[in-house]
């Protein structure tokens, strides 16, 4: 059985990239909200990290949807997904979540960047300031719903794969949680990377804050990863077989142990602990750690997608 071509393979890497991008978007928005409310308050729009998150989130979600549409066998009929709904289909529910998520995402961005937007619009389009004033009244609701929908979107990327009985490794209740946790951490990594590239201070309070959240998040991911595979192995039968095919010898075994567990989780965890302990936060440390986290999440999505489809029940 080759690593990328086997009989039972249906969904290829574009789906993994889509799942990754949706996770990045959800995670970036989640951390942008946290940064604003727990750390920066009204000054959020000045922070390079919040700006980065607000740029990354819409681009990632739109790029992900673009990839998803191009991967259809009838790309020009994608609108039918938006017109016809099936309440039992996770994909259909996911489309609803994605659409609502985007509404609140744009609304929240507009509220957060209200000041620069109004400053720019006032001499040109005065009516926009009225709109933003109305929108700002609902800030609490928008923020709350954005958090709910970004968590839902992150979890949806896992539910999409787990909601079928054919592949025992994917049909696993821990998968949505694992994808949610890794999606959030990829979002924080993307915000950090974008933030330092936008001249954010690598030793600023945003970075301190994100690192404080990220360390338990990575530890949580490792626990979830352990639960995921321990659960499969203890279930026996095809589940056990699937787990050993995935993390045993072979190409994907290397990807898992070296790429995901090593570069994607252990290295960023060590770097975060090191930066917290020594208070040395330079551009290269922060950017390097973020790149490793992102690489780890891309690898995880592909690893789960491909190895998950190798063993059937």
């Amino acid at each position, binding site marked *: 059985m080759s690593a990328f071509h086997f009989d039972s393979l*249906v969904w290829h890497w574009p789906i993994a990239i889509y799942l990754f991008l949706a996770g990045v978007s959800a995670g970036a928005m989640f951390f942008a909200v946290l940064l604003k409310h727990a750390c920066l308050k009204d000054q959020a729009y000045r922070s390079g990290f919040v700006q980065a998150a607000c740029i990354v989130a819409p681009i990632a979600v739109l790029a992900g949807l673009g990839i998803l549409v191009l991967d259809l066998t009838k790309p020009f009929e994608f609108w039918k997904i938006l017109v016809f709904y099936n309440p039992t289909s996770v994909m259909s529910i996911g489309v609803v979540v994605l659409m609502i998520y985007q509404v609140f995402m744009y609304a929240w961005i507009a509220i957060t960047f209200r000041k620069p937007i109004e400053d720019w619009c006032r001499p040109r389009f005065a009516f926009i300031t009225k709109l933003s004033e109305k929108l700002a009244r609902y800030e609490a609701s928008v923020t709350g*719903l954005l958090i709910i929908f970004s968590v839902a979107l992150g979890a949806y990327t896992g539910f999409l794969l787990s909601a079928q009985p054919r592949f025992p490794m994917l049909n696993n209740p821990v998968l949505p949680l694992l994808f949610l946790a890794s999606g959030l951490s990829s979002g924080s990594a993307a915000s950090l990377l974008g933030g330092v590239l936008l001249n954010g201070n690598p030793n600023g309070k945003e970075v301190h804050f994100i690192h404080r959240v990220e360390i338990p998040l990575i530890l949580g991911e490792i626990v979830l990863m352990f639960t995921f595979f321990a659960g499969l192995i203890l279930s026996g039968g095809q589940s056990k077989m699937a787990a050993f095919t995935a993390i045993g010898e072979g190409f994907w075994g290397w990807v898992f142990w070296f790429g995901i567990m090593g570069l994607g989780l252990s290295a960023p965890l060590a770097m975060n602990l090191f930066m917290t302990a020594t208070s040395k936060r330079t551009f290269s440390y922060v950017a390097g750690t973020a790149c490793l986290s992102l690489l780890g999440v891309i690898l995880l999505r592909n690893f789960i997608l491909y190895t998950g489809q190798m063993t059937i029940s």
Partner: protein
Amino acid sequence: MENSRRDFLRRTCALVAGVSVSPFAVNGTTDAETEQAIKYAIIHDETKCIGCNACVEACRETNHVPEGVTRLSIEKTGPYGEYPDQYYHFTRHSCEHCEDAPCVNVCPTGAAYIDKKTGIVSVHADKCVGCQYCLLACPYEIRFINPVTKAADKCDFCKETNLKQGKQPACVEACPTNALVFGNLKDPDSLIVATLKANATQRNKQDLGTRPKLFRITAKPGEITL
């Protein structure tokens, strides 16, 4: 601020409650299901099958299935025994028309559906966008993308062809050894009900809860597998 937060919580709770109850509302159709007059199923008698592939050819011709893909195939295992006294096993690989069909559950547009009148699992090719979620979800691996329509395709018991003309499905008509029995499970006088009562049958992957309607009368095993 305090007010809007309370407001927000109230609305969110209402929304969550509404969304979580809605699937039950959809499942409320079980009463109609029990009164359904027709429920088609098929039996493949593997003790009679000779592996001639007449069913496959007939299906291709009747349903205009393009070359390179198929709605139906006969899988051969063997030979068992020693030359010159050998034999093979033939198993039918086609849609099992599950009562609880994973393909129908996952389809985002409702293109995959269970026909209410007949229990046949079928596809609206026009509604299908080709996300291939059904190909991923089907535990029997019988779905494929039709290279002409670009939609997911599968066996529909010739619903649009032979059944419409009051005939048996093409595979059943073509079988030279009467290894295939097609009929209505709800009709107590049908041949399929009589055959099911008289024979020990098996269904594939029942533990997945799919409740398939392809019944197998299996041949002698030929070898011991642990």
